[in-house]
């Protein structure tokens, strides 16, 4: 598919990239996260789903233990500006600066630059085809 210098293009036999997906905060809308989790599995990723109400620290610990290339967080409650930078901080605190942090949910366009400045690598809006997310992770994975 020529999506860039991803690991898989160089080494087709390499182990699949692992993605940790979680809901942080109290938002209970879980289906988007599950659909992306399932879609990424179909796109050849290893996916670990942590479920609802994870703290940034729990997410970072799981990313470390699972040797994740990327962490995907879903937030639909409006708490993204408060929560997502904390996930980045928690990842960095575990020495996981290279782990890609992507987000999805109901996130107004105006907040995207704020999140990007806080170290969130990409924001995907509802309705994004999962292969698009997969291609992004492949092309940008740093570990």
């Amino acid at each position: 598919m020529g999506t860039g210098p991803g690991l898989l293009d160089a080494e087709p036999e390499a182990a699949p990239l692992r993605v940790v997906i979680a809901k942080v905060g109290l938002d209970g809308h879980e289906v988007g996260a599950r659909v992306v989790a399932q879609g990424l599995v179909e796109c050849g990723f290893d996916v670990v789903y942590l479920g609802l109400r994870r703290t940034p620290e729990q997410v970072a610990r799981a990313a470390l233990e699972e040797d994740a290339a990327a962490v995907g967080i879903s937030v639909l409650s409006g708490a993204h500006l408060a929560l997502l930078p904390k996930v980045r901080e928690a990842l960095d605190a575990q020495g996981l600066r290279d782990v890609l942090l992507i987000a999805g949910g109901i996130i107004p366009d105006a907040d995207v630059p704020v999140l990007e400045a806080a170290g969130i690598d990409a924001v995907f809006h509802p309705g994004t085809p999962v292969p698009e997310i997969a291609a992004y992770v492949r092309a940008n994975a740093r570990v």
Partner: protein
Amino acid sequence: MKEQSSRPETHLTNGEADGLREDRERWERDVLAPWLEQAPERPSELFELDAGPEAAPLYTPLDLLERGIEHERDIGLPGAFPFTRGATPNGPRSRPPLVKFYSGQGTPEETNRRYRKLRDWGVEQIQIASDLPSQVGYDPDHIMAAGEVGRAGVSIASLRDLEVMFDGLPLTSFKRVGALFSSLGPLALALFVALGEQQGLTTDDYVVDLQNDPLKEYSARGTQFLPIRPATRLAADVVEWCVENAPHWYPLDVCVNHLNAAGAGSSSGTAFALANARCYIEELLGRGLEIDSFAPLLQMFLDERDDLFAAVANIRATRRIWARMLRDDYGARDPRSLALHVTAYGHGRETRQEPLNNIVRTTLGTLAYYLGGVQTLYNASYDEALAIPSDVALKIAVRMQQILTHEQGISLTVDPLGGSYYVESLTSDLERLILDELARVDEQGGAIACIENGYVRSVIVEGAVRRQRRFEAGSRAMVGVNVLASDDEPEPVDVLRVDAEVEEVQRRRLAEVKAERDAGAVGAALAAVTEAARSGANVVPSVIEAVRSYATVGEVADVFRSVFGEWEPDRAF
């Protein structure tokens, strides 16, 4: 005319039916087929309903005959068994759907300002939208509340917040008032009882309408925080208390809405909700209550937002199923038990792109519920796919319902689509899909078993994946998004932002409440809640006392956590 054992709605004799069948075959051969040569159909996936069936090109009396639909047995008259045509005899001519709004944002003061506006615009029912910490049982100063206070709704930590929200608004200002609090039903009930007392009202003076449906939280909505069985018990406590103390209130609204939206689709979603209803009913029967003492207090929150005709058919089918289920499975005799009272939330497939188009979508979705004959109705604001509604968007939504009540002849007659070959056929087809799914749930041991064994989740996720695929393929069309997208500059939309200071304001208020209240009284009241929860007694009286003493949402929830334990997140997908 000879009586037949199976009398179709159309009152056709066998000879007449054969004649119609021949006419239809001749038409297909001689008229339709040549037409399709020059005007081929659009792709068949476009005719698949999200609710399950594929729409046929045409419906005629033969479709009713083939489905064995009998007028008296299956359709009947409104306000009479099997209630297909309506819960009440005179529909919107006597009672148009109550205009209800799900509203709350930021601080209680800000919410009060909005409630006054809603009252002035003619809104008849307020359903409090509270923030996630309050729904999940955390006070604003809890670590888990960080970033969420006042975000998805108004922050509520104690009775003090309701006092502010309803300042200058006696609970009698609206025909009904209510809240969701599906994981903390007794607390929501207690807040309204205590607030009513403060306003000098008795429970006879106003009507409380609660969602209080914890089971669907575990499958689709996500505010569960207790293990599933005690959560079910708390919900039943609310119903039982109302049976004894406020039988004109609506203590439990069994929801399809969130199950459908999450991916189950309206047919399986309705089946799962009916299975949840069975669970509550059986819990209450197990306490020795008579079915006709509590069934009239139950409502359902139905939902089909992809297809106007399927929404009408789903409501009609569900009323029929409910009437038969209550009569045949539970021995209900009171017509008020058999007549399902329905609420709904007018939606379409709303989009963030070109958001003003959502006004058109929600109008059609809301119209569907008018045509289906609901008792109370919310509808979405055009900016709900973006944020909490702005004032402008909210007012358009209020006016939308009022226009449907007063203009365009929408509310002049009962069940206006009844007798349509299409709608009656679809009613029957959806009824079959719902009953088949309900039978699968029953076979596996009922609602709780199917939540615990992952069956409900698997149906929801499969449905959500199917929707996503259909969206990507363009057969789940969203105009301006995956079909007919334009390159125009996005329209500017005024998105409501919740002030980040809300969290600080609410923490301060909580500290004030804690400083001012009688700590001894709070301690005693919480001890009484603990005792009731442990002993299996109805917790509602003790929770009312706790709320009166200004015990907080988090404190009451912590009592339940300590007695019942905590729910564990599900990591399967």
